């Protein structure tokens, strides 16, 4: 979206939340932007990478989140504005570096942007990075709408320079992947003759000219606490803390982030604008005590609305407890009191329900008779949709072979999964072969442990799968551990040519970087071969050969064996829209349920492009969905599924 870099001050656009964040960074004059792909954060870096050359910015998809923080920090140490972007659990990955970075402080404005996923819409956790802000003693900002995503990101750079430390700006799925109208601000002049330099020859403890170290710790910890106090004082008058409502509300809502919009909507739904005040906090750590006191004094009843855990609630309560002598005791509603859930994302209805109970007002969201009728219709007309791999996905073929090889092996083997689309291998889509799924790189890590349990009599086949991007991110460490300790593991790299799940961001195995420039690529096969272990390379669409190789590797019980299955993702630019085979069912040959295969194709293989024709009782190719990968022709024992090469 080139308009993100247009000089269009004052113009309003409908921006994706993540584009608004990118625009805020551009308006702040960011020079170094790093991240690791992860939903819902990826579009921030993608937006910046599109304008990197035009705006003279260095944009990097780093190998993992810790590296993203480190590379961005180098920019800050050289007095450039820098940022790092990731999904919530990415902050965990880099937290060790962050602990020390917060202590050493920063120079050029540096902003950390975790995009979190309450409700785990695109995650396998709903963890929060907010607690890190308190733990690391750095300021936390939470924009409350789309305009604020842009404005507050821009402001975060100023704040970071003002206090000389990292600032965290937290977004959530409903903001990052939502869209709203945003009025653009001024873009700075493109600075082409910037001269970066890391000044480090001054007095050791000089924050601007000394070394960036954290010793003596007591000195730097003291500095850190002074910085966060300074941020707290700035927050007392911050324009991003706003109040709407009556002078003396019956109930005060304190909220932040997307919950600001849910709360606003709930107040409108219940028509209680004259009874409820809405204090939206943009600065949620540290809380500004004078401001909190001013609003707590307005009423005796307070409802705190936030996602996911009661972070702000607890912090407000600490302040309120200290203020009792001046403002008296208050009644708090929220998560601890059970008015709102402590898990999952919130929405206007959950806030409305809480308000309804607290205020004793009537509100009907849906007529009961209608609701019953609609539920019956859903049961009848909307069959559940289980997640599956896309038509033409190499993972379906890979798991088909893995499943068959495990069955042939016959030792109750299992697959340690990892983070990527192939994590769905625990579902029927992957023939339920994946039995463990945790963090990036943990598949091979845990497998490395299982591979040692032969000492205690364990004799199951241990298989780990890992995508190409995950291999570089954290998988490689697990591999080193497994090889060095001679663990009995079959390690399968599902190499689909990019960070596919999040939209084909480049990784160290590719020849281009985030900015489209040519870069050296690292060869996974060569890396594995250098570890002096057996390495095989295969095409997952060749089912027979893959199964043969896998069976052989599993039988070989000595140490780590590596199989690299290479096939680009079906949605990759290389394959999307390109049909390799025209698929066809020979209805004379397909004898449907009378075939001994028991509908292997549709009952087990379950590709969305291959459906069951209930009238003819044969399989049928759905031409709107099939992408012509040709794999299903090899699973039909009768040869009824046929492929013809597209010229």
């Amino acid at each position, binding site marked *: 979206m080139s308009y993100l870099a247009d000089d269009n001050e004052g113009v309003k656009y409908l921006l994706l939340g993540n584009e608004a964040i990118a625009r805020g960074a551009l308006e702040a004059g960011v020079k170094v932007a790093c991240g690791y792909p992860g939903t819902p954060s990826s579009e921030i870096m993608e937006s910046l990478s599109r304008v990197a050359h035009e705006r003279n910015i260095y944009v990097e998809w780093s190998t993992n989140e810790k590296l993203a923080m480190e590379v961005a920090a180098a920019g800050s140490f050289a007095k450039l504005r820098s940022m790092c972007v990731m999904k919530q659990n990415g902050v965990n990955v880099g937290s060790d570096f962050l602990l020390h970075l917060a202590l050493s402080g920063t120079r050029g404005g540096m902003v950390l942007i975790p995009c979190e996923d309450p409700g785990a819409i695109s995650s396998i956790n709903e963890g929060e990075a907010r607690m890190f802000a308190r733990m690391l003693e750095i300021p936390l900002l939470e924009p409350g709408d789309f305009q604020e995503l842009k404005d507050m990101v821009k402001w975060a750079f100023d704040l970071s320079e003002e206090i000389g430390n990292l600032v965290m700006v937290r977004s959530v799925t409903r903001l990052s992947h939502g869209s709203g109208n945003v009025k653009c601000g001024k873009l700075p002049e493109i600075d082409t003759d910037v001269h970066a330099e890391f000044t480090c020859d001054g007095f050791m403890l000089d924050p601007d000219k000394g070394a960036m170290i954290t010793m003596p710790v007591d000195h730097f910890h003291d500095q850190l606490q002074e910085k966060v106090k300074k941020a707290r004082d700035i927050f007392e008058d911050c324009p991003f803390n706003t109040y709407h409502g009556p002078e003396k509300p019956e109930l005060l809502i304190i909220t932040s982030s997307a919950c600001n919009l849910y709360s606003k909507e709930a107040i409108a739904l219940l028509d209680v604008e004259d009874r409820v005040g809405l204090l939206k906090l943009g600065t949620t750590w540290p809380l500004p005590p004078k401001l909190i006191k001013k609003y707590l004094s307005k009423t005796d009843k307070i409802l705190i609305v936030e996602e996911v855990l009661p972070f702000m609630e607890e912090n407000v309560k600490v302040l309120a407890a200290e203020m009792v002598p001046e403002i008296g005791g208050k009644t708090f509603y929220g998560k601890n009191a059970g008015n709102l859930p402590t898990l999952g994302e919130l929405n206007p209805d959950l806030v409305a329900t809480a308000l309804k109970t607290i205020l004793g007002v009537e509100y009907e969201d849906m007529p009961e008779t209608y609701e019953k009728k609609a539920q019956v219709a859903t049961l009848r*007309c909307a069959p559940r949709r289980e997640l599956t791999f896309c038509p033409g996905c190499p993972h379906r073929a890979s798991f088909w072979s893995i499943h068959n090889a495990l069955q042939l092996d016959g030792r109750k083997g299992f697959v340690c999964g990892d983070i990527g689309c192939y994590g769905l291998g625990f579902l029927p889509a992957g023939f339920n072969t994946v039995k463990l799924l945790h963090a990036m790189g943990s598949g091979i890590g845990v497998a490395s442990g299982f591979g040692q349990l032969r000492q205690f009599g364990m004799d199951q086949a241990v298989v780990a799968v890992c995508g190409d991007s995950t291999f570089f991110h954290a998988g490689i460490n697990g591999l080193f551990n497994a090889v060095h300790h001679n663990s009995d593991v079959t390690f399968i790299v599902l190499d689909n040519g990019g960070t596919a799940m999040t939209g084909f961001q480049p990784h160290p195995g590719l020849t281009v970087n985030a900015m489209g420039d040519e870069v050296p690529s690292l060869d996974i096969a060569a890396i594995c071969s250098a570890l002096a272990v057996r390495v095989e390379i295969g095409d997952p669409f060749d089912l027979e050969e893959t199964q043969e190789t896998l069976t052989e590797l599993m039988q070989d019980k000595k140490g780590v064996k590596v199989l690299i299955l290479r096939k680009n993702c079906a949605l990759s630019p290389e394959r999307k829209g390109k049909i390799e085979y025209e698929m066809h069912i020979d209805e004379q040959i397909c004898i449907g349920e009378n075939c001994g295969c028991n509908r292997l194709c549709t009952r087990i293989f379950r590709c969305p492009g291959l459906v*069951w024709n209930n009238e003819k009782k044969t399989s049928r190719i759905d031409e*709107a969905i099939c992408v012509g990968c040709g794999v299903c022709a090899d699973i039909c024992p009768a040869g009824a599924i046929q492929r013809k090469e597209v010229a």
Partner: protein
Amino acid sequence: MASAQLSIDPYNIIIAGVGGQGNVVLSRILGNMLSRRGYFITVGESFGGTQRGGSVMSHLRVSARSIWSPLIPKGRADMVIALEPSEGIRVLAHYGNPKVKILSNTRAIHPVGVIAGELQYPSIEEIKKSAHELASDAWFIDATDEALRLGNPILGNIIMLGAFSGLSALPLEKESFREVILEMMPEDKLDMNLKAYELGAEMLRRVVLDTTSRNKPGSGAMNVI
């Protein structure tokens, strides 16, 4: 730019479909078309890796007053645009109300449970019946079938958008569609998209005429455009 008042404000649209059908692109085009008319637009959606083959939903809220929650409150949808027919019914259990209207594609995408024989997919007649029971108006368009004739099933979402413009529920013009497409896509995609958009509007006109003439037996004049 001052935007015209809406009789329902915010006007709440849900675009329902299956991952890969172009939900997100459709909500962005529609949102941008209306944003150009000066409306406040708020969109909420779910996309990413875990939507593979699953139900997807975009919430689009149009207002002359302000932005709203990116999630529509329960029971508050005004229009459901269903890129897949069973998905249109699914969203009503949470967002429907007796006044809601449905514009639906007719082409089914079978869930893997149906392909496997564990679940049943309803006939399009059953879906139409449910839609008419639950909505104040329901229109069904063979969008994917026509898109396949145009050469690419993904154009089904643009055909549905064209059909929605034909309902005149909101001020949507072909010119703003053209501008938005040019901004979002390479220029060589414009003609095909315009064709799909116009086709959708025309298909809706035929469906409306057909319904009107069926509801008023004997009024043969309705068949004349």
